[in-house]
């Protein structure tokens, strides 16, 4: 019971002050029938050592990216996180703080959010960004919902191959919310927005001008989804978009089996009052000194209740901090260099794989991920590679395999991958 500071004596004294004979007397409003008199079918408390042993044993049953040549991407990427990032996010002042609703004692968190918003706006070529959302998939849904609020239309066009998990989430939200239609193809006059993932799920970078024109012709908004935010260091920014959203896990966060990650969201300034999520703004204090506060909260659920733009309450505060520290370390040159190193790794991987008999690279263009076609079923190949200790990519339909490389990928990793893959095929 190491987390409980009360002593038996203190409990007795407090009960006396309260005027109760026992703690159970304080629970008297709970009807008899609703009380659980049997013991729970759960073990009793354990010391730190035992808990650590139990959970470590579970962790050791998994193959981590640190233990195997790793070529899986598909929206979640294995990157290096500098030590300073993890140190900063474990500082008590950030880790154990609350949402900054009391700005006088939360300027640290607030200035970080302001810097985070600035990073996202600049990277995506947009005017404003929010304080973050749960993840790329829910950010994409929020973008679609926002486009529907702005245009008062209820159809969503998917313009390029969207991450299949994002697509599932989009379909589930739209079919469970009310009569909203999600379709693949070009926008018509009932379309609220085009969702354009770039690079698309198969790794192909998209060109925005053509889609901008298609949207303008029918009055739809253009929403660009970025799965791999590092790509923005090598590719032109989606400045033509009305909304840019996606996943920023690649900067500062481990893959962590799918979360917590970092959904980002930016847009044109004219749409801010329709934006979901928290926003941090600059202001002054009573002495005229610069400070920061959460602002425009009249959009949010705690003020507007049933008339809020979204039911979202939280952001991914600590994840946004990790991102901001990592971006601060990378800076202008470091971020671009990181992007080019990712592209370089992918180029090396493509060149090496294309030398294997029967293996072809499907993409003409890519950033750090592309599709290869194999002479046999890719899901079987992925399992065989796992048996050989290689996490070999994501099996698409039939013989197609999606593979990624990052700055973590070494020449030796690629050699081993090519060697084992040649044997399996």
């Amino acid at each position, binding site marked *: 019971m190491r*987390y409980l*500071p009360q002593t038996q004596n203190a*409990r007795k004294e407090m009960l006396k002050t309260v005027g*109760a004979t026992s703690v159970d007397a*304080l629970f008297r*409003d*709970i009807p008899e029938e*609703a009380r659980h008199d049997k013991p729970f*079918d*759960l*073990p009793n*408390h354990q010391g*730190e050592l035992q808990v650590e042993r139990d959970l*470590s*044993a*579970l*962790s050791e049953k998994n193959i*981590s990216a*640190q233990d195997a040549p790793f070529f899986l991407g598909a929206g979640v990427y294995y990157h290096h996180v500098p030590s300073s990032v993890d140190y900063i996010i474990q500082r008590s*002042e950030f*880790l*154990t*703080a*609350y*949402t900054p609703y009391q700005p006088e004692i939360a*300027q*640290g968190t607030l200035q970080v959010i302001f*810097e985070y918003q*600035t990073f996202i706006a600049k990277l995506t070529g947009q005017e*404003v960004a929010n304080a973050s959302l749960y993840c790329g998939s*829910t950010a994409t849904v929020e973008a679609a919902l926002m486009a529907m609020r702005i245009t008062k239309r209820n159809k969503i066009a998917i313009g390029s191959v969207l991450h299949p*998990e994002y697509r599932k989430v989009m379909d589930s939200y739209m079919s*469970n919310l009310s009569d909203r239609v999600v379709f693949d193809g070009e926008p018509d006059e009932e379309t609220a927005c085009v969702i354009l993932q770039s690079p698309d799920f198969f790794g192909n970078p998209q060109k925005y001008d053509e889609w901008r024109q298609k949207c303008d012709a029918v009055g739809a908004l253009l929403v660009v989804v970025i799965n791999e935010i590092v790509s*923005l*260091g090598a590719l032109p920014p989606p400045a033509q978009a009305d909304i840019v959203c996606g996943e920023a896990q690649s900067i500062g966060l*481990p*893959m*962590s089996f799918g*979360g917590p990650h970092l959904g980002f969201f930016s847009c044109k300034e004219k749409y*801010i009052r329709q934006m979901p999520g928290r926003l941090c*703004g600059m202001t002054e*204090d*009573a002495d005229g000194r610069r400070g920061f*506060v959460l*602002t425009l909260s009249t959009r949010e*659920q705690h003020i507007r209740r*049933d008339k*809020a733009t979204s*039911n979202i309450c*939280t952001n991914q*505060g*600590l994840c946004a901090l990790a991102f901001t520290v990592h971006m*601060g370390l990378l800076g202008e040159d*470091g971020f671009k*260099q990181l*992007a*080019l190193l990712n*592209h370089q790794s992918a180029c090396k991987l493509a060149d090496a794989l294309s030398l294997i008999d029967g293996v072809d690279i499907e993409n003409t263009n890519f950033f750090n991920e592309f599709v290869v076609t194999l002479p046999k079923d890719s899901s079987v190949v992925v399992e065989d590679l*796992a048996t050989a200790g290689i*996490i070999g990519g994501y099996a698409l339909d039939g013989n197609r395999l999606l593979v990624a490389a990052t700055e973590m990928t070494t020449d030796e990793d690629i050699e081993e991958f090519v060697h084992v893959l040649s044997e399996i095929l």
Partner: protein
Amino acid sequence: MDGNRGLHYEENLLWEKEYSDHPGVDLPPVEITSLRTGQDARETIGLPQLSEPQVLRHFVRMSTWNYSIDHGFFPLGSCTMKHNPRLNEKLARLKGFAHIHPMQSESTVQGALELMHELQSWLGELTGLPGVCLTPAAGAHGELAGVMTIRRAHEVNGQAQRKIILTPDSSHGTNPATAVMCGFEVRSMPTSETGCLSVEVFKEALYKTDPNGADIAGMMVTNPNTCGLFEKEILEISKLLHDAGGYFYCDGANFNALVGKVRPADFGVDVMHINLHKTFSTPHGGGGPGSGPICCTEELAKYMPVPNVVKEDDGSYRRETMEDRPTSLGTLKAFQGQFGMHVRALSYMKSHGADGLKQVSEDAVLNANYILRSLCDDYHAPYADNGPCMHEALLTDKKQKQHDVTTLDIAKALVEYGYHPMTVYFPLVLPGTMLIEPTETESKDSIDRFVTTMKKIAQDAQEGKAEEFHNFPQSTPRKRLDEVKAARQPTLSWKHVA
């Protein structure tokens, strides 16, 4: 802007510093000379550039402006700011948890799936609700998952005409916002003078537009409620609701009052979310990440989102798909939730165990009652005469307002005296409410010091020191901030001013 006096730091923005000619990371040189992206290279982005010590110092200095649970008492009602054990941080960072990918073959992540399965079992046992879905990313997301589950159940059962969700006026703002998002109409129910929902008020709302309540989809109730009280008539209310064909959604924000002691299934709950970042101590992190699994009855489990983790006869674990459960509403988040938070929460649960968790709710409730009794003479405590509270004590500024001191002033005075304020102006059922949740991780000594401070504030208010209050806080890195100015012409990112 930069500088400091004693230990008070000023720190400008990254963009306002003198840039270095090299970044804060050393990366290998780029060898390729041409791109295969099919596009032009990125031009200047407009990012700052600093070395590692400059960046580290920047964030450490800013951190000194934050108050946190490790600094002191954080009596924020409905938010459960309790101690965050560092063991949980350590375990979430084990390479077999931190560096695994959600789309790896399941054969390579059996330990992670087993952990999720175990967490599902703990939550199922503690709530009495066996259907557990871990995917929701936060409390509000869990609410969405829960209300969509109700919607889906009605739809599948040919009850799509049920369009109304009942909720008390004391509910969290996320409740009505979620119901509306799911296409429901919200019918608000007034809280009675006792601070609870009465059977009479409930019946009136239930049968208002249909004599059998056949247009009611369900109700969203927080229990214990946001007035800090257990809904005494909840058994009768939930029975009436069930008889009318509606489902009971329980907002789990206040589960810390019940954990290890009372199972929500036993007072009629059909589906609820659990805030792992409240009851199970995953850190708030300055506003996230949260984690909001839902727990539901076997009946509703057919409709809740996929995937959850199932154990096969051979002892292996896998994620179920829509093919396993075609009645499911689908997927509400890519992959399977905030796994890093699942690791932390399970570590916390195992540390406490069944005996420890029971002690958690008992101490949380005792601490709140101790505060209520210690302060009910100094402050208006609207429900104190009716008996004990649960894990939160509700006060208002009624007495202090006569001296021109409001709840906001009291909050800012607490800031001046070194505390994070309680939740203010919530719930909305009375003017000037202050909701105090001490949690179980405060000692009597810590609470006594808080009580002394609150008594001093009440005394000062009575002595007519209103002017002093209006200028609080004085000792913080910034004084009161101009929120109107921030909203009038929003500046949401740094722009270079020439």
